[in-house]
């Protein structure tokens, strides 16, 4: 039997953090996306235990402040895309206000650390979401284009192809054949 799942990364992150921190008996407070405020001083031993515990879930504690900010930008982008239909302001304004830094600073920081611009990343993320929609739901391309705030299916297709080198239809077909093959093998 096959079930398809969708992940709300933020929720998972928060849940796991809560569980682990509670278990280790650490007082904390979850602030913005990807950020936890530890209320106490952690001993090295406790810190190591926390790091290991979180690593099991693929959660890395980012030492580097810059990287942390990059992560927060990414999380903010995710959130933005989640509610893209409702957000009237431009990306730059949104991020700047959400994260409390100037957009130019954020953009520069982002490119330096990720080798790609925020705009590119957003496109990549959108296409990634489109991929998820195509794989896990029965939505038509028109519906997906609408959901992701493209002005038309043609625009979605164009951007999709530009980003991945494949048309959405091709992509869908490949994924389906992959699944079929996988089902055959098991």
């Amino acid at each position, binding site marked *: 039997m096959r079930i398809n799942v969708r*992940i709300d*990364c933020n929720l998972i992150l928060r849940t796991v953090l809560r569980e682990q921190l509670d278990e280790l008996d650490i007082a904390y407070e979850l602030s913005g996306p990807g950020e936890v405020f530890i209320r106490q001083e952690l001993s090295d031993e406790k810190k190591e235990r926390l790091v290991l515990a979180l690593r099991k879930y693929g959660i*890395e504690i*980012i030492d580097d402040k810059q*990287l942390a900010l990059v992560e927060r930008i*990414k999380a903010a982008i*995710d959130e933005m895309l989640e509610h893209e239909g409702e957000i009237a302001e431009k990306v730059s304004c949104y991020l700047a206000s959400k994260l409390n830094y100037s957009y130019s600073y954020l953009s520069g920081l982002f490119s330096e650390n*990720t*080798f*790609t611009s925020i705009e590119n*990343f957003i496109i*990549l*993320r959108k296409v*990634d979401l489109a*991929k*998820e929609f195509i*794989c896990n739901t029965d939505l038509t391309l028109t519906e997906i284009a609408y959901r992701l705030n493209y002005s038309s299916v043609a625009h979605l297709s164009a951007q999709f192809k530009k980003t*991945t*080198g*494949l048309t959405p239809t*091709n*992509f869908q*077909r*490949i*994924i389906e*054949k*992959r699944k079929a*093959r996988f089902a055959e093998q098991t």
Partner: protein
Amino acid sequence: MSIKILNIALADDDEDDRTLFKEAIDEIPIETKLSLFNHGQELMDHLSLPNIILPHLVFLDLNMPIKNGMQCLQEIRKNPMLDQVAVAIYSTSSSEKDIESTFIHGANVYINKPNNFYNLKDVIERVLQVNWQYQTSNLNKDNFLFRL
């Protein structure tokens, strides 16, 4: 894995191609660590060593003796330990059907071997970049398909 260094492996039986690849990689600003293999078997042997640091991305030429790219691809995808490894098929032109077949068998990337150096660099850089995004963000690696 939020490490800055991208671990890359290439399996190609053509020496020139290997050299060119390395040169191209070296000129790309992204920090990488490249391992070169002469053919598929070498690569697979290496991958099955215990305790090795797995490459993030493996480039496979299709036409190799002893074990060709397709066979390697299938083996890699059969191995759950190598789930996180992205595979890029790197080959001279094939028919649409063959290209699609590589994707279906689990390849993440298909690259037509470019015929000049700039294109080579450009292509590799784009692949690395995209791959890097997938490695460092919560983009769905299963859906990572990229074709150049």
